[in-house]
């Protein structure tokens, strides 16, 4: 019966699709729920409809998703599109809105593969219409064939930003400039982790090539920029920054902003899984076993970038590992075979983690991009500024959960997704303690603002 599969997977990105393939190969029944209208998650967004032209524009890494999605769609997984998971309860039980109706599933095991999101990057004027994430712009390209209009600027740091610039150039959309906020000092700091990452030299070379392409296309690149600010009244009209000690301002109808990606921990925090602060990834990471089982839960696994940013190929490996572990728990794989299969996967994962450490160091978002000045809005929903949060600390607030109580920060519809990280960092900074000493923002079910009538299954 569809409502009682062996395995329920949340998320149709690389981790979820790979886990589904392995579970199906092991003879398990699988239901996969995903919010979007097609498979691929964000990295392979719209891959089902991507023709050869699109695959050329978006590159080989994107094209690699095509075979995976095709295999997934033919795997016999019950794949439910536009499905909003709003609660995961002990059982496990999974509550979701599917086609406008609330349903409850009773799988024997759950694999969460809910992926990552762009790091919210508070800066002056970041709430202005027209300031949009680079990832969002990439989604609009892939799923809707659209590019930014008018003079537009890319501002921020990280491989996604440079990849996007390349992709835009391929379709004739020229950014007016790339304002790169990567700290120059990061290059020195990245030398150490570089040694560990050399095993992934192909990826490294590709990365080095990207900025070169952008410069050769004649796009001005302002490297080492600081004090990013977005200007405008009612909509963005320009971006200001400091570069080589001097102030700059560029007109822009659209600004594509980016400061890396972070795991989406809404579900894992709502499940009350312990989270630890990672100073290298500058985010909270949920605790799991080596095989991906979530601590403090029964029968719930975590695969892909939701467990820590490591990229699409690592996501597939972890999806496989979780699926093998689930197979063992459900008695269709004996423990020795499971170990034989997962040991090499875990070794390969270690190589991706080493590459990750290098990238995390090189593209570490600057403090100023994560811990903003007083007048910058941190909670977009409730319009609470960084200065207000610092004021709460002076009144005795110790962490984000208290900050909610003090001033509604995190109480809006995004349920703390956009403000949680900045809240923790600002409070830690103001208190003068390590971020890990500040409590992680609690999340509750429903993890999406579902209508009351849809809560009654």
């Amino acid at each position: 019966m569809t409502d009682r599969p062996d395995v329920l997977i949340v998320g149709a990105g690389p981790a979820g699709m790979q886990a589904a393939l392995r579970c199906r190969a092991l003879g398990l029944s699988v239901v996969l729920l995903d919010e979007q209208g097609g498979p691929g998650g964000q990295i392979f967004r719209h891959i089902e409809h991507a023709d050869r032209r699109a695959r050329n524009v978006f590159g080989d890494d994107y094209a690699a998703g095509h075979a995976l999605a095709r295999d997934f769609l033919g795997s016999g997984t019950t794949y439910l599109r536009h499905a909003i998971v709003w609660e995961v309860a002990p059982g496990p039980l999974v509550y979701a809105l599917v086609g406008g109706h609330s349903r409850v599933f009773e799988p024997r095991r759950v694999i969460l593969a809910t992926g990552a999101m762009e790091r919210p990057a508070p800066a002056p004027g970041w709430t202005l219409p027209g300031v949009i994430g680079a990832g969002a712009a990439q989604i609009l390209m892939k799923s809707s064939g659209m590019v930014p209009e008018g003079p537009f600027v890319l501002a921020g740091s990280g491989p996604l930003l440079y990849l996007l610039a390349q992709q835009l150039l391929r379709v004739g959309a020229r950014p007016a400039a790339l304002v790169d906020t990567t700290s120059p000092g990061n290059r020195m700091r990245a030398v150490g982790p570089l040694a560990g990452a050399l095993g992934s030299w192909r990826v490294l070379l590709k990365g080095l090539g990207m900025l070169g392409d952008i410069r050769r296309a004649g796009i001005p690149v302002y490297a080492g920029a600081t004090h990013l600010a977005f200007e405008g009244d009612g909509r963005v009209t320009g971006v200001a920054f400091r570069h080589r000690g001097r102030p700059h301002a560029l007109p822009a109808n659209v600004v594509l902003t980016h400061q890396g990606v972070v795991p989406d921990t809404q579900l894992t925090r709502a499940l009350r899984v312990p989270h630890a602060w990672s100073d290298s990834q500058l985010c909270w990471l949920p605790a799991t076993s080596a095989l991906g089982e979530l601590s403090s839960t029964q029968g719930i696994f975590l695969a892909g970038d939701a467990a820590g940013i490591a990229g699409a190929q690592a996501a597939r490996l972890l999806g496989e590992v979780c699926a093998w572990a689930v197979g063992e728990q459900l008695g269709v794989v004996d423990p020795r075979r499971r170990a034989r299969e997962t040991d090499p996967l875990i070794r390969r994962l270690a190589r991706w983690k080493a590459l990750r450490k290098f990238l995390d160091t090189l593209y570490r978002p600057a403090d100023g991009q994560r811990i903003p000045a007083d007048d910058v809005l941190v909670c977009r929903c409730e319009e609470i500024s960084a200065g207000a949060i610092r004021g709460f600390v002076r009144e005795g607030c110790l962490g984000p959960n208290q900050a909610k109580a003090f001033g509604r920060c995190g109480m809006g519809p995004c349920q703390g997704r956009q403000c949680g990280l900045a809240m923790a960092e600002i409070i830690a900074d103001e208190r003068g303690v390590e971020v890990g000493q500040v409590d992680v923002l609690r999340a509750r079910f429903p993890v999406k603002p579902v209508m009351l009538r849809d809560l009654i299954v």
Partner: protein
Amino acid sequence: MSGTGFFRAVPALKREGGSVSIRIDGRACTVRAGLSVAAALLEQGAVRFRQTPVGGAPRAPLCMMGVCFECLLEIDGIANSQSCLIEVRDGMRIGTQDGAARLAGMTEGAAP
């Protein structure tokens, strides 16, 4: 600059497909089938999706993947719908979400 929207369709990525008729703030429009409501609005040149209930500030999408809640619109009478997660459909009625949710059954000025 002020007359333009934020995004436009680009020929290099153009795909064949149908179209659907929708209404945006009462105005009839024809948009490409298969787009999310948010993408359709952006293509139509929308620069404001909503006004925040707290301060009345104008907002437009940030993430296009369902985690920022800036793309909230009233869709077929349901307030605060995440328009980046909903596909356009023939006959759909879309309205900007100005301020707090107005629920069906709320009538004008009928405060006790």
